[in-house]
């Protein structure tokens, strides 16, 4: 169900964004757009399938705390 919703949402986004680029033959823009589109679609698909995606913020927190030793103590 979640996967279907994700595909429907991305189909809607593509329907809104693509016609202008295709009509005006802006192939470079289309290539750039497609790359980003597929990346975000991949992320959405993984989430819809229940795959646990590690949060970049947690990695950053660990890097600042454990490597740079830049972290306040929790009050």
């Amino acid at each position: 169900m979640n996967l279907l919703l994700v595909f429907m949402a991305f189909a809607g986004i593509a329907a809104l964004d693509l016609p202008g680029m295709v009509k005006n033959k802006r192939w470079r823009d289309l290539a750039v757009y497609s790359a980003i589109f597929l990346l975000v679609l991949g992320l959405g698909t993984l989430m819809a399938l229940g795959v646990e995606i590690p949060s970049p913020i947690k990695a950053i927190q660990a890097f600042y705390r454990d490597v740079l030793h830049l972290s306040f103590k929790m009050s």
Partner: protein
Amino acid sequence: MNPEMKKISWKELMFAVFCFMHSTILRSGFIISGTRNDSWAMAFTGLLFTLPIVAIYVALLRKFPGKSLIEIDDIIFGPVVGKVVSVLYLFFFVSLAVLNTRDLGNFVVDYMMPETPIEAIILLFLIGCVYAIHKGIENLMHLSTLLCIIAVGAVVINSILVLKDVQPGFLRPFFQLDLMKYVQGTVSVAAVPMGEILAFTMITPMLGKRKKAAKPLWLGLIFSAVSMTIVMLRDIITLGPLVSIVSLPSFESIRYVSLGGILTRMESIYAVVLVVLFLFKVSILLYAFVLGLTQILSGKGRTSPDTDNADQSPEAESPLNPKNHPPLVLISAALVFFYSIFVFESVMENMNWGATTAPFFSLTFELLLPAVSLLVASLRKIGKVREVKA
């Protein structure tokens, strides 16, 4: 987006800076939990800490009038290193958009609609942000004046109505905490609400080359510091020792408002104002991200109203005009949606990030990178001086 309306006035930018920061000021729990009844002073010390940071932004904008942060990076560091630095800034903007979106979701679920899935709230909220950007960021900037009046009006009215329940004695004892607590409070205030005005360096080109960005940034910052002091003082003298326990002191203090048992539940006004200010802030951050991404990918700089090749006709190039650039607003909003869903697993993780690491993470982008940029620009003697000679 309407390509004809690209200019904004310095007053609109000043109000926008105020509204941008006010959404965080109304969620002052992360500061008050540390510095308790002395938190009001953190607004001033935070402002003092932020002044040199904003001075760096102003110096960069003066050296490169009419240029956005991403364009400035390209000029200072060259096309390759400049892009790398710009990508770091974009990561910062999108992370801020995600964190604020998540905060909005948590707020609505915790205080307004506990049965509603956070995904639905975030989705609706982001649709609002996309709509605001689609209608033109300049229109959102025009709207900032009205938003500012509503936000200030809500604070003033709520503060007056809560006056009968306040106890000024709750402010005592003054400055008895460990020095490190004040350092933490000062850095948190400087990095989290105040330093985030870095995002406006993507919008200042809309002022045009001839108008200076310094005045609206300084004034917006100072007014926000004053507002922050008033809000924190009100919360401290209303809630007393409770202020450091609750996660949203402003929300809890406004709950005290009751005029003859008729005028109650004023916190709903606070909630509406907070959601609107969140929408304003995330729209600015999302716009900064999309504009930066567009500039990096298309390799074209944004045409500001006063640049030499500026076309004042209705067909003039709009910063995010889909006729000139890949349309990235919707797909960027989709990225923010997914990222905000998995960014934190619980509210505690979110609070831990805000209290411990967020100030250092933010200062990396708000202080370190701009300072390095300014230093390199000065050493390489690039910027306005060379432009004038040329």
